[in-house]
């Protein structure tokens, strides 16, 4: 039971960490896809089958595609080899420090907490149960989520669509 978890966890963490350090955005994105798949694997391991497949469908099937598309559309000019300017070094250091601080706080908090009364077997949740929950108690949130998605997609289209040219505007 623990071995699959360790494999999944190390795969997820390693690919996420490497993805965030790489220079090549395509490699980052593909490694992150691996990481997302690892998280889906965790969901499967925990018994949340439906969420796992939804995670793959949305993250691997949709978000990764949009990310790759954005990477291809925004290929930077060839200044990859330019040395890091000073502000970036400061940024890097402060970012790392911030991350380390949060990590230490989280670690101490988690390790110091005693957890009792957990259940040993995964609670069973079938697709039918989920459907009943979504259509019953959570119907309002489902509608809200639908509206948010629609509005977000429309907004995305408006933002990303090239603005109509007008001849006076120099930009």
């Amino acid at each position, binding site marked *: 039971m623990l071995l699959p978890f360790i494999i999944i966890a190390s795969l997820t963490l390693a690919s996420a960490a490497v993805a965030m350090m790489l220079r090549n955005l395509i490699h980052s994105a593909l490694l992150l896809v691996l990481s997302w798949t690892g998280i889906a694997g965790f969901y499967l391991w925990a018994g949340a089958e439906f969420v796992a497949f939804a995670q793959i469908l949305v993250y691997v099937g949709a978000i990764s595609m949009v990310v790759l598309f954005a990477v291809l*559309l925004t*290929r930077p000019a060839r200044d990859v080899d330019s040395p890091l300017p000073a502000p970036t070094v400061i940024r890097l250091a402060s970012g790392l420090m911030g991350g380390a601080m949060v990590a230490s706080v989280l670690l101490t908090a988690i390790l110091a907490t005693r957890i009792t009364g957990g259940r040993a077997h995964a609670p069973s949740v079938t697709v039918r149960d989920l459907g009943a929950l979504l259509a019953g108690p959570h119907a309002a949130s489902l509608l809200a989520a639908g509206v948010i998605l629609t509005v977000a997609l429309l907004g995305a289209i408006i933002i990303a669509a*090239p603005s109509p*040219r007008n001849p006076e505007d120099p930009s």
Partner: protein
Amino acid sequence: MSVSDLTPLSSPAGAQVRAVHDEFHGDLLEVSMGPHHPSTHGVFRMIVTLDGETIVKLKPVFGYLHRNHEKLGENTTYLASMPYTDRLDYLNSMTNNWAYAVAVEKLAGLAVPERAEYVRVILAEMTRLLNHTCLAGFLMQDCGCMGTPLMYAFREREKILDLFEALSGSRMMCNYQRFGGCRVDPSPEWIAGVRQLVEAYGPFLDEFEALLSGNEIIMARTQGVGRLAPELAVSAGVTGPVLRATGVAHDLRKVDAYGVYPKFDFRVPLGDHGDTYDRYMIRILEMRESISILRQALAALPGGPIMDPKAKLRGFRPKAGEAYGRIEGPKGEIGFYLISDGGPNPYRYRVRPPSFINLTILEDMCLGHTVADAVIILGSVDIVLGEVDR
């Protein structure tokens, strides 16, 4: 509209598109399509600059098949040049032969017997059928039809090539016309074969059109794609079906009325949009007219000699002078310009290749369209690299 109605414009329609795309949106991608590309119809290269998939610049590069054709013509005798003209547009050797023969006949003042004129018309119209059928097949292949229309087209092409072989001894490099007539007299069996072909050709065209001309995807892919303005077409010297698709009535068979064409009743189809679909349909309609011309010519084929008895092939030395002979080839005006200094070779030998001149407007037609469109626009211009590069 005819040629004289139009004043050539100095600013091509493409300039506007070019100006819009000067300020580009994304990074541009320069792709070298060809010289080895499945759809460039030979060793032709287009250096295409893309914004996404939209073409913002297209530079045609040719010359990969250059064979020194014109210089060869100046260094061989008049007769020895005839087989070289086969290699210009290797689909249409019969019309190339004819245009060259017309030039030499003008230069030397040779008359052509009436039977030879009729045979020339029959062969020219068969060549037109052959060329347009192949073009339609290739164009559909460029649209992504997986070879099916192409194979249908090639089935018909083989029948014509068989007849050419029976007459001249060669399928594609016919070398059949001579100045002052034709090389061999066609036999009655051969005439019967042509008659059979002509009767079967209409049904084939019906079948072909039923499959393709009304196809939704074909229409979506070709209508409105690669528009060519009549002004630009005229000022660029475009001829043939590409010109007539823009609505300009210019067909040398009517304009020059050479040979025995005035004796036949045929019409010249014209397009209104000048786009790829028009260029395709004009060719289909021209094939139907060709069938009608062939019927009339076969019915009225006179007897008599096939060669002008005064014509002298060996030791042929026309007197000094110059002449330009042109005919309406399947791809447009194919012309030969000859200057003679009285020697056995022409002093200057120049070809006016329709493919090459029609190709010059490629960029203007492609700007603002996508890579996939460029391929079918090139296909609809109908080029043969043997003629473009010479």
